């Protein structure tokens, strides 16, 4: 099911959370709403779900206006940031909940519910936890149960609020890949909220970058990373260094800087204050001689090994690509 968001505005008291948001989510896509905290991304997700209503504007599912349709009738699956599993119910009952609360006419039989729940638990690879209670599960397990519960009602749209936010780094990476594969299997239109650019870049088909209640840019991960529309997008999607240029403030990624021991025509002198050489990349911190600002530089290990810069050394840096907005 496709989602279309048209001229959505939303305020909380004096604070304007969303300003004239327009967005198209094609059917079957996995979209990330990316932005810093307070940018309105969660509010937008909740408006799509029907948990919050916009002050003005419309939400269309497959071209049908659903702005005022009750959250129960929207057929969305929602995974909450802290999972919101029913703590007094077993994992099985949690997943079965959406089927059990249906009106009698459309409620599946107990046998069907049992079959369906076990299918879902196998899908998230946690069938063996059916009789446990949520407090007895790890964070990653809770996350997957929350997802199984949301999928039980066969949602047309799957919405996830910071799905990996509360997990530790290792689990987060595994779950990220797993979610991507699951989406490729199910092809349900999915929107997830995140403040982690790496997560958005790795998982999503399309990234919607938001800031201060507005959409800054919409595009594929490659597009928003390589052709950022605004300086905010550029800064938010990776580390940057700011340089003064005749055209105004310019931005340079840490790997777009050449470091050498001898000066060239437009190089800048500086002192190497710190070398961090763990992993495939070596990070250098260089203090500029002219304005005492620090510049972050990333070198491939091969490149670094050839020159072997040492801490405290005098070096010259040349940005080979400057972006000015």
């Amino acid at each position, binding site marked *: 099911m496709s989602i279309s968001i048209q001229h959505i505005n939303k305020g909380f008291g004096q604070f304007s959370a969303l300003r004239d948001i327009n967005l198209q989510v094609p059917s079957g896509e996995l979209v990330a709403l990316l932005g810093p905290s307070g940018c309105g991304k969660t509010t937008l997700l909740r408006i799509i*779900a*029907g*948990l919050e209503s916009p002050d003005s504007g419309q939400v269309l599912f497959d071209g049908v206006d659903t702005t005022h349709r009750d*959250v*129960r009738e929207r057929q*969305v*699956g*929602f995974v*909450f940031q*802290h999972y*919101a*599993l*029913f*703590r*007094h119910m077993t994992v099985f009952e949690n997943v079965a*909940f*959406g089927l059990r*609360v*249906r009106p009698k006419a459309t409620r599946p039989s107990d046998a069907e519910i049992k079959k369906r729940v076990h299918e879902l638990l196998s899908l998230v690879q946690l069938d063996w936890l059916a009789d446990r*209670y*949520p*407090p*007895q*599960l*790890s*964070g990653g*397990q*809770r996350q997957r149960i929350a997802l199984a*519960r*949301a999928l*039980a*009602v066969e949602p047309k749209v799957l919405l996830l609020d910071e799905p990996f936010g509360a997990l530790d780094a290792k689990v987060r990476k595994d779950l990220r890949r797993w979610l991507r594969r699951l989406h490729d299997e199910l092809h349900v239109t999915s929107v997830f909220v995140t403040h982690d650019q790496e997560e958005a870049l790795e998982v999503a088909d399309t990234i919607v970058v938001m800031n201060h209640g507005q959409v800054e840019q919409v595009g594929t991960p490659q597009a928003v990373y390589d052709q950022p529309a605004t300086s905010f997008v550029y800064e938010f999607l990776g580390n940057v260094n700011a340089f003064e240029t005749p055209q105004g403030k310019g931005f340079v990624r840490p790997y777009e800087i050449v470091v050498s021991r001898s000066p060239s025509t437009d190089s800048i002198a500086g002192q190497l204050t710190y070398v961090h050489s763990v992993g495939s990349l070596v990070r250098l911190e260089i203090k500029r001689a002219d304005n005492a600002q620090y510049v972050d530089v990333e070198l491939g290990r091969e490149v670094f090994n050839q020159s072997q810069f040492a801490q405290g050394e005098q070096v010259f840096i040349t940005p080979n690509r400057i972006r000015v907005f």
Partner: protein
Amino acid sequence: MHATQSQQYAAKIASRRATSEPVWVRYGLITLTVAFLTLFLLVPLAAVFTEALRKGWSVYIAAIFEADALSAMWLTLIAAAIAVPLNLVFGVAAAWAIAKFDFKGKHFLITLIDLPFAVSPVIAGLIYVLMFGLQGWFGEWLIDHDIKVIFAVPGIVLATIFVTFPFVARELIPLMQAQGKEEEEAALVLGASGLKMLWHVTLPNVKWGLIYGVILTNARAMGEFGAVSVVSGHIRGLTNTMPLHVEILYNEYNYAAAFAVASLLTLLALVTLVLKTYVEWQAARSAVRNEEGVIAS
């Protein structure tokens, strides 16, 4: 080897000392507390039962099964049977509204719920007399329609409801606020109706707090004296609750009977205490279980 052991032992004692008071302070405080409790709680408790049984079991039994005493018990049970369910519903509704929604005047509502705690029970009774009594606001209308509120059962029930209504709400509000509304939202998104959400998600989550509130409400409903005294009129066999019956017997110098009925109220208090302890223990246990789960993750 011995030296290190004794050193360790000394270090252990020292570290214990660092975080606790000197022995005489600890034992002093404990003695004081126990003495106070004995003097003001245990001795009177023992006195109630001693006095009740002073003239033997037969007098005790007779006092309890006397017609007016039975009718007082019956009225007490009726007042509690009406007040407790009503305040249960009201308490859940109020706590629900306050904990899960934002609206103007929320703090005023919380203050209002606390009013029965703040006002003297006698004043609470008087309010009803002023409203429903013969000279009260609705007095004439009530007489015209032949409805008796004051000096009758309805007045007693009203006064009981008034003095007991904060208990359930007061127990539930902090609990519900701490739990937030994500689980309720999850239930709604999954298609649950409001009632199903309340029954399957909200109430099970506050189960122990709710039971605790009901126990306190019941204890107060059965034991209330001041407010009920004002609206009752003390008509024997008709508008006397157990606490009022005790007072009447006592004023008639019928000590054995007075203490016999009082002993029933005392037993009620003891049962309440046991139930309360059990509920607190259960609630703590389920909290610990949740806590352990969080740590394990």
